[in-house]
Structures are given as C-alpha cells and as structure tokens.
C-alpha cells in the first residue's frame, strides 16, 4: 500500500484511505518504540531538513525523534523571521538547501501556504509542520490516532473543539480530517475567536459550550493566547474561563468515558483546570507519545523507505 499524496501539506482533500493508512502504519511503529533500541533502518541515508521559521519545541523534537528512529539524517534549520526578512527569499533558501542534496523538508512557517510554495521550488518531499492559520496535519493525525487507540474507532464519534478557533491551524486540520473519517465535529468559542465565514470548514460552530459538549465523546481544548485580550477579542480571563473553560464541574456532566485532549502547551486554570488536565479522562501525554509514531508513519510512507 502506498499513499496517493506525494507531500503532506494539510488534511483538506486527503482521502479516508490515505488517513487510515497513516494511522495503521503509526500503530505498527508502536512495536518499534517499545523495543530496547527503538530504531529501524528504514530511512537510512535519507537526509531530512527540519526548517522551522517559527518557534516550536515539541513539534520539532517530535519530528527529530521520529527521524532518528527511522535512521534518517536530520538537519535542523531554525530561522528567526526577522533575519530572513532582511536576507534571502524563501525560494533562495530552499534552493540552497536542496543544492546540498536533501530528500525531505519538514517546514513550519507563520505564513499560510508556505509548504505548498516549497513544492513549487524543490523536488524534495514537503511535510507541513504548521503554516500560519492554515493547517497542522500531523497534529490532527496524532489526535485521531489517540482517539482510535482509546475508543477503538473514529466513525460516528462526536468531537467538540473549544477555544480560539480563528487562530488555530489544529482546529482546521482536525475539522477536515475528522469529517473525512466520518466523525461529527463541532467548533466552539466566542464569536470574536471564530472565523467570520466558518461555513467553509463544513462543520457547525457554536458559542454555547454546553451545547458543544452535549453528547461529546472527545473534548479538545485549544490554547488561549493571552495577548489576544489586548486586541479586544475577549474581555477578561475570568469571563473566558466561566464561558469556555473546562473544570471538574462541567466534566461531571459529561460521559464518564469522555476523552480530554489538548495540543499543548496548556494554560492551566484558563481553558483547562489542572485537576481535569491531570485527571483520568485526560489523554494529553498519550497525544505527545503518539506524535512520534504518527510522524514516523508519515516520514516512512512519504520517504519511500524499505520495510525494516
């Protein structure tokens, strides 16, 4: 089996078969991760550039670990946007890197569409590690992997994604991917943090948390960027917590089996109370573990590695 996509730019338009293959492959890498030496030689000799134009610790480390466990040679290239804006264009940067003979590029950038742009500049395989407000596909894949592991299926499950939807590429990728997998997604937040035209994402939106949580199998809280308060999108942390925060009280109204997820990093006591984040329903650390397996699967399937 092979993927029909050549790059992973987003989950918008990616087929159910492709997503299923990535998740199945990720499952099979768990066996590798539990070995005493969790390394396979499948991508030996492949050079992968981690091109991070935007700060990131967990995503970059997760990709790097996945690359090392597949025996690839990772090269890290972190750039501050300010130095780039004075210097060379993105096309020149990628052409220079390509001239050093590379196979794959994992890219994060604060401008939407950069992964697609890179496919027009280079022959290397491009993997999107987050582009502006657009997509963060490997995060959505690891979210779906986590849900499938815990509940055993995706089809028919209801997921509430709560918080700053407008600025969230995680919400967008999950909306596309989960809808493709037959899940029911509802997006919830204050109208100032919802897109003005949410209909294009093809899922319902609400400003009523109780409505969103009603019957949910999974609740995903998004990080609230505190600086948004000064730009006038919400009046106070207290009001936000009251209207959109998940605490034990609200949790007690939900199914005992509900999964609590968060792409991290968490604002404890704002979108998520500590005793919920650390409680029995939380799968937040499993998400992080699964991140490595999902990224191994994506790298393996797009990198043309031999089965080891």
């Amino acid at each position, binding site marked *: 089996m092979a993927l029909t996509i050549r790059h992973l730019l987003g989950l918008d338009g990616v087929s159910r078969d492709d997503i299923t293959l990535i998740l199945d492959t990720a499952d099979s890498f768990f066996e590798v991760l539990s070995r005493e030496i969790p390394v396979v030689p499948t991508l030996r000799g492949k050079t992968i550039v981690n091109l991070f134009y935007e700060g990131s610790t967990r995503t970059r480390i997760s990709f790097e670990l996945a690359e090392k466990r597949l025996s690839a040679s990772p090269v890290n290239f972190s750039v501050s946007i300010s130095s780039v804006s004075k210097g060379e264009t993105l096309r020149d940067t990628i052409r220079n890197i390509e001239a050093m003979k590379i196979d794959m590029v994992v890219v994060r950038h604060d401008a939407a569409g950069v992964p*697609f742009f890179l496919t027009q500049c280079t022959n290397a395989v491009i993997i999107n590690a987050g582009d502006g407000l657009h997509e963060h596909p490997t995060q959505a894949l690891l979210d779906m992997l986590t849900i499938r592991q815990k509940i055993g299926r995706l089809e028919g499950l209801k997921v509430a994604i709560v918080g700053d939807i407008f600025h969230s590429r995680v919400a967008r990728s999950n909306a596309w991917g989960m809808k493709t997998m037959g899940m029911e997604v509802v997006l919830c937040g204050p109208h100032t943090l919802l897109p003005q035209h949410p209909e*294009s994402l093809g899922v319902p939106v609400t400003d009523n948390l109780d409505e969103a949580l009603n019957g949910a199998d999974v609740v995903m809280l998004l990080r609230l960027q505190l600086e948004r308060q000064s730009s006038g999108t919400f009046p106070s942390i207290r009001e936000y917590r009251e209207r959109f925060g998940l605490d034990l009280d609200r949790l007690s109204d939900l199914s005992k089996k509900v999964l609590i997820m968060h792409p991290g990093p968490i604002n404890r006591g704002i979108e998520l109370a500590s005793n919920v984040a650390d409680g029995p329903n939380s799968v937040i650390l499993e998400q992080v573990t699964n991140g490595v397996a999902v990224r191994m699967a994506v790298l393996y399937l797009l990198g043309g590695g031999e089965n080891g």
Partner: protein
Amino acid sequence: MVNRDNGATIFPIDGSQPLPRIVIKNGRVIDPANGVDDILNVVIDNGTIAAVSSDIPGVFNTAVTIDAQGAWVVPGLMDMHVHLREPGREDKETIASGTQAAAAGGFTAVACMPNTNPVLDEESKIRYVIQRAEGCASRVFPIGAITKNSEGEELAPFGEMVAVGACAFSDDGVSVAKSNIMRNALNYSKSFDTPIICHCEDKVLSYRGHMNEGVVSTRLGIRGIPTIAEEIVTARDILMAEYTGARIHIAHVSTAGCVRMIRDAKKRGVQLTAETCPHYFTLTDVDVGMYDTNKKMNPPLRTDRDRRAVIEGLADGTIDVIASDHAPHVSEEKDVEFDAAAFGVVGLETSLATVLTYLVDKDILMPSDVVEKMSLNPNRILNLPGGTLSVGAPADVTVIDPTASWKVESCHFFSKSRNTAFEGFPLKGFARETILGGRIVFKKTYPKTPLQLVKKNNGKG
C-alpha cells in the same frame, strides 16, 4: 523601434521628422462626444484631427493610409489610474517603459499616482514627471498627493501643483485616515477644478489582511480584508463630498456595497464619479487558487456576488470609468509566500482586451460605452481636452480590432514587470494602431499563418 515577436512594435517619436498626413479609412468611427458611430474616414493633418467624413479630400492622396475595415476607430484611450514607479522604483517601471505599455494597450494618455519615492507632493516633483514624460509613447498626467508624503497629516500644496500640471489629488495606497484632514482637503480642493481621488480602506480593519475575507480565506488560512474595510471609508467620503460640495472620484471599486452606495449618492446629486478595474469584473477570490500571488491586489478580489454587482454598476452607469490600477512589481516581490507578496498587478496591456472579452462580447457594454469609460469620461473627470475626435482636437486615436483572438503572454509585455493576473488567458481584441499627436506610436501586425496549423500539416504531409 522596439519589437516584440508577437508582431507588436513601438515607434519612437522623432520630433525632427515632419508630422505625417494620415488617413484612417473605412473604420467604424465611435466618438460619443460628437454622437458619431458610423463607417467613416478619419483624416489627420499636422497633429490634429482634420476631418471625420465619408469622403477624403484630394490633398490626402499621398497620405499614410491605414485600412481600418472591420476595426473601430476611437479617440485615444486614457487610463486614469496607473503606477509608473518613477521616481524611486525604476527597476519595476519607468515613465518610458510604462508609456510604451500604455501605447501597446491602446492608451494615448495615463494619469499616474503619486505614491513614488519621493511622493509627488510638491511642484518640483510634478514637474519632474512631466519632464521625464516628454517624447514618451503616451501623454502622462501626474496626480499629486493630498497630504505631504501621503502621511495624512498636512495638506500638500494643491495650488502650486495644479499650476504645473497636476490633474487630480490622491493619497492612493492609503486613505486619509483622519476625517478632519479629509474634510479640509475636500474644502481646499474646491478652488481648483480637480477631483480628489479616494482610495477607500480602513487600515485598522484590513490590518494584516492579504485577501478578501470570506470562505476562501478561511479555507486557505489567510487573514482577510473584509468588504467593510472598503465600504466604511467609501461611505465616509461620499458623506463628506455631499457635506462639503467638493468633487470626488472613488478609485478601484470592488464590492457590491460600494456600488450600491455610489448609485444612491448619484441619485441624490452628490458630485462623484467612480472607477473599477478589469480584475474586479473578471475574477473572484476563488481565483487565488493555491496562493497565487499574481491574484493579490488591494482591494482584493472579492466574491462572485461582488463581481456581478460591479458589472451591473458598469452597465447602468454607476461606474463611470474602467482603469487598470497598473501596479508593476519585480519577480522577487511576487515569487514569495503569499503573505510576503506585494499587492498589485499590471494591467495596461490587457485592460482593453478584458473589456472587449468580458463586457462587450457578452453584451454588457456597447462599443460607445467602452469609449466613454476608457476615454471620454476620464478626460472629463480630470478636465482634460482628450476623449473626442472633434475637428481640431489633438490627433490621439486608437484603432481597435475588436474580435481577433490572442493569448496573454507576459513575456511580450512592454512593461518592465510581468505580474499579470491574466497569464495564459485567451482574450479577444486588441489595439492595432495607437496614434499620439498625429504620429503612429504603436502598431501590431498579424502573424501570416497560425504556427500550429503549419506544423500540423507538415506532420501529416
């Protein structure tokens, strides 16, 4: 002489040569200022229109003859909204290259916006542009800035700029944000018969936006420029024109709401005119596709509902002018990530063909409407003498083939820049000859045999 291998040629103006006598024979002469639309001959002598008639005076037997059978013969076209980039960004365009692009597009006159470096905000800078335009392939009428350095704080000296040839005032690229300054500008402008040209954009609402805010921007993850950013300032400027009695011209109208407000204001008798650009009646935000930076301009491509409203506004006369907002950029400003790409597209060399293809061929505009919106009205709005074929008028004439098919290939442009939104588009119609002040400055010859056909036959034979 500058040649392009699509048969287009620019002829330099040699002032030492005598002005030729020219007879343009048997064309469909469309001159709405004089109520003419008939098969006639246009006779040019000594740089002016000598006659528009069915017969040709005998002394013109030896004149240069242009056979215009099947073609339109119209007063030279005028594009009242272009960016010539000189002074400051001569790598994008110069007055020389921009006027060649104008001539190749059928334009004998352009009005150029003052957002150069330095900004055209005083007499000496207006004079500089006029001097640099001498001997160029089209007339150039500079527009002065409303405020010094277009910073929206202090009025620029309208009087001294008008005295040396400024035809209007605009801070194009930005609005005059402070309403009290805009009010002063409108009141002050009443002493001169020049319009204030309004770029309508609330920069606080459009902040960090790169395309129309809508379903497409949401899907692409691009921050949006909402229609209300344009409409709020359009509403303000209409109210100000009404209150002060000054004359305004609304630039590059792109939204349904603006068309509606302008229509209503005209009904009330407010002194205003309006323009739109070819991309707003041909394309929508869907055409941004996968982050195509050649579809990025300001205001941005809107929705199909807006596009249809702009077309209605053109058809019912709400929108008086079609201008290109010709905005040349070098490739390194476009061949980048969408957010980093410069706003703007070139338009001088595709404007006429988009009008013929999308408006005339679809029976939205009559040929005489085209001449009004691309020649007569801009001249009237800017108080200039062009836009007619009246006897004695300067012989600025465009001969148009209204039906010939061609494909947009930016490599053939006379403009220095290639950032067209219409690359590869099949279009109908072009300027065959452009005559400026009685001299032929541009001519396009037809390829003798379509190349593909020859190859095909050879292969078979």
